[in-house]
């Protein structure tokens, strides 16, 4: 082939790169491994992740739920996972129709009117929601409950630092674990958005209706963030409570933990704000013969057309993970989502009750919770959980001191439909004995 294009050596392919910039030595990266060696290497590294083998009660933004076998089977089809962004609709209808269904499912679950084709994850979706609220209201203050996921708040802070948006945090109620009354009262005429997570970082369910009323009374938007999307199968939808933008982490819907990603951000809002949405949208379209199909639409919001005036810089999103969520939601269906959500709530309530009866343990918050709750232990939670892991092979939750230094003995416990009664009893026994 070199000959066919009139070259004598592969080096000549790079003649346009000045000689002094060409690497004159081999890359100092390892020599090639065979398939056997590679798998062995990764299996060994995987084996050094003791956390992956334990019975787990960890949540806080990433959840262990049952994943029907067919989800990974569909994801593994070449036609889906080796396709590009559907820029040529005539040969991308599989991807496009899937996204249209995904958008519909997100609307149904959140109680909203329009949803986009996905964001990177819940945390970046929240940041984009705050930026959108500024565009919609032309106001520059965002007020957030400090009971939101600390990492989500960090991401919002990074995104808004040069956008002229002031982010204000309002302390949560130490009694209930919910947002305090001060949150609703702090909304003023400069507020673009009130930001609240429900269930919040402590697992407590917030009074969204009251917060929506407070925000709307001052012309602000209510942004609701959800890290445990399974809660949507049991709790009243944020849309029905008056939310203006709803974002969620969709990992609970058929996506493995995978050390934090790739996950999928859900983003939904009211129809009147459709042209302010960040990211891609798929809409219905027809060809000359009247056949229905789907296309990427409202592209004039996006960076490849609007450049610096775009609603966001996002381009590649989480297409394949949105497909996973779509397959999951359609397989579980109307009944399965509610069934799984109910089991989460029941098992968590049962576990909380059992732990609260143990000597030295209590539940510091009184607010209603879905499938996560805070436990106050008899001593330092980091040490307690480390012993539980080491001695009992149980991962009992997440020490809150990793995020808040004033809560040394508190830890967050999450229970899902995958935790059997036997596992729950083992946790309770282990807590009693360490």
């Amino acid at each position, binding site marked *: 082939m070199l000959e066919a294009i009139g070259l004598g050596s592969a080096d000549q392919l*790079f003649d346009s790169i000045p000689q002094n910039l060409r690497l004159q030595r081999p890359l100092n990266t390892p020599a090639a491994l065979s398939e056997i060696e590679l798998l062995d*290497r990764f299996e060994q590294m*995987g084996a050094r992740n003791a956390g992956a083998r334990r019975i787990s009660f960890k949540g806080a933004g990433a959840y262990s739920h049952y994943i029907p076998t067919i989800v990974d089977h569909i994801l593994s089809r070449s036609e889906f996972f080796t396709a*590009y962004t559907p820029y040529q609709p005539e040969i991308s209808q599989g991807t496009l129709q899937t996204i249209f269904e995904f958008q519909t499912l997100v609307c149904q679950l959140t109680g909203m009117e329009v949803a986009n084709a996905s964001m990177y994850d819940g945390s970046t979706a929240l940041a984009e929601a705050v930026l959108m609220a500024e565009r919609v209201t032309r106001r520059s203050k965002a007020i957030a409950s400090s009971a939101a996921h600390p990492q989500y708040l960090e991401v919002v802070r990074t995104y808004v630092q040069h956008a002229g948006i002031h982010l204000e945090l309002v302390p949560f109620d130490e009694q209930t674990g919910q947002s305090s009354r001060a949150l609703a009262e702090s909304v003023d005429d400069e507020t673009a958005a009130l930001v609240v997570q429900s269930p919040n970082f402590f697992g407590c369910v917030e009074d969204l209706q009251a917060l929506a009323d407070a925000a709307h009374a001052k012309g602000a938007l209510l942004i609701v963030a959800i890290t445990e999307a399974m809660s949507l199968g049991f709790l009243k939808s944020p849309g029905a409570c008056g939310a203006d933008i709803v974002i969620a982490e969709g990992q609970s819907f058929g996506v493995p933990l995978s*050390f934090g990603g790739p996950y999928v951000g859900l983003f939904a809002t009211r129809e009147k704000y459709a042209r302010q949405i960040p990211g891609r949208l798929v809409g219905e379209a027809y060809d000359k013969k009247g056949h229905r199909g789907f296309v990427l639409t409202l592209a004039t919001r996006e960076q490849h057309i609007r450049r610096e005036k775009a609603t966001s*810089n996002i381009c*590649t999103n989480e297409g394949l993970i949105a497909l996973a969520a779509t397959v999951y939601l359609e397989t579980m269906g109307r009944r*399965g989502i509610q069934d799984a959500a109910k089991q989460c709530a029941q098992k968590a309530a049962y576990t909380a009750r059992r732990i609260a009866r143990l000597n030295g343990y209590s539940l510091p918050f009184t607010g209603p919770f879905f499938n996560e709750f805070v436990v106050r232990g008899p001593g330092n939670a980091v040490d307690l959980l480390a012993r539980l892991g080491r001695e009992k092979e149980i991962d009992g939750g997440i020490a809150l001191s990793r995020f808040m230094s004033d809560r040394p003995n508190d830890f967050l416990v999450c229970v899902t439909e995958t935790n059997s009664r036997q596992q729950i009893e083992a946790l309770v026994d282990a807590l009693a004995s360490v």
Partner: protein
Amino acid sequence: MTTAITKVTSHISPNEQLIFERSQTGRIGYRLPALDVDEVELNIPDEFRRDDDLEGMPEVSEVDVIRHFVRMSTWNYSIDLGMYPLGSCTMKYNSRLNERVARIAGFANLHPLTEEQDAQGALEVIYDLQQHLAEITGLPGISLQPAAGAHGEMTGIMIIRAFLDQRDGAAASHRRTMLIPDSAHGTNPASAHLSGFSVKTIRSTAEGLTDLDHLRELCAHGEVAGLMLTNPNTLGLFETNIQQICGIVHEAGGLVYMDGANMNALVGVARPGDMGVDVIHLNLHKTFSTPHGGGGPGCGPCCCTKELEPFLPVPRIVKSSDASFRLDYDQPHSIGRVKAFFGNYGMMLRALAYTLTHGNDGLREATEAAVLNARYISAGLVEDYDKPFAGSPMHEVVFTDKRQSRKGVHTLDIAKRLIDYGFHPMTIYFPLIVQGAMLIEPTESVGRQELDQFIAAMRSIATEAVEDPELVLNAPHNTRIGRLDEAAAARKPVLRWKPKEETATPLPEPSTAQAV
């Protein structure tokens, strides 16, 4: 006319409704164990509970779901079906081995908030990949946290801003201009805007390279924070004056950001760090073969010089003196976190597997093959299509519709006709500075046979454009649907399914495509 089409014949194309239109009350496709704990009264008040019974959500069986998605999948083109020559997108083969690695239980079942000592293997993967990417780019400071290219861009530009703010103090507020060539990806100006910069556009020369005089002129104003440059640029040309370009920007007190979307032309051959570039993002879902998944997930590592390292997102993943890996949050100058947890970790596993299975020599060979393939296409099409720039292309080559448009056949028509020949079209109408652009990137994952088929298809279309322009103008002919009315779709957007009574228009299904 079908004689020239060698790659495909027509095939059954099953119809499939939306899942909501298939739903039947009472059908289920899942089974959970019975609730095995005593049911208790929950402390959640009734007014906080869902009361719509999720009306409208699908009720289908497992086999319904399988057929639904398998049928829809047959409507997609994919890399596994053949060449996918989208310029600037680097659609290369996605190894099944990498998929298997990402599914190893020790990683797939690992919670992101697992304590450091119980996630040593996972942290080692991140650390090792960082080391390899540092070697490949010549830039030692790395964060794998960004989830995609645009996210990595935003991170890189925020790092530049943080650096300038620290270096210049209050005076930095006058340095808020980001220079971007007119050939750049749209994400560049959008990312600059997110970091609080205004954008000034640099012209390209007639040869398709950055106009140095214009760059000098813009830099003379003293407000320049930096330059965002793609190299090789989006015309597929290496910016031969890259060192001079970096020198001019540095002299003016700015920094150079390189968009690494086109790194597939450079891996193992040349390193941005050696060129004077300060910060770059990579696309693991392009250069390092992690699957594009119909629009993501990506992974957009940000790589920078030692000087910029203190500004990278937290946490950093570092190696302690006892060879264990840990998270370092103690970075007071960091721009902050750009994503929860560690980024798109599953993509890091795949990219590390790609790097290790190729080995150092294989990485360079892949680059050579990618450039060779683009050159081969360039030579094969130059007699039939207008090639606006004389320079030798790297891994992608741009042509235009200049000759065909005389007959009224435009780039869009050529792209659609290519579908009939069994190929996914190239990138069209990008870069914006080239009228009727067709940007072709074959990657290393195509052999000579299919390259020849592609060239033959393109040449055949050029002939058709002269002899039977209507044939091209009405393409595609072999797909299940024709060209969709995108303007109408945007005027009255229908962005979700609604139950029938709320739907205004009837929803006809396309008939099975007819062979032409």
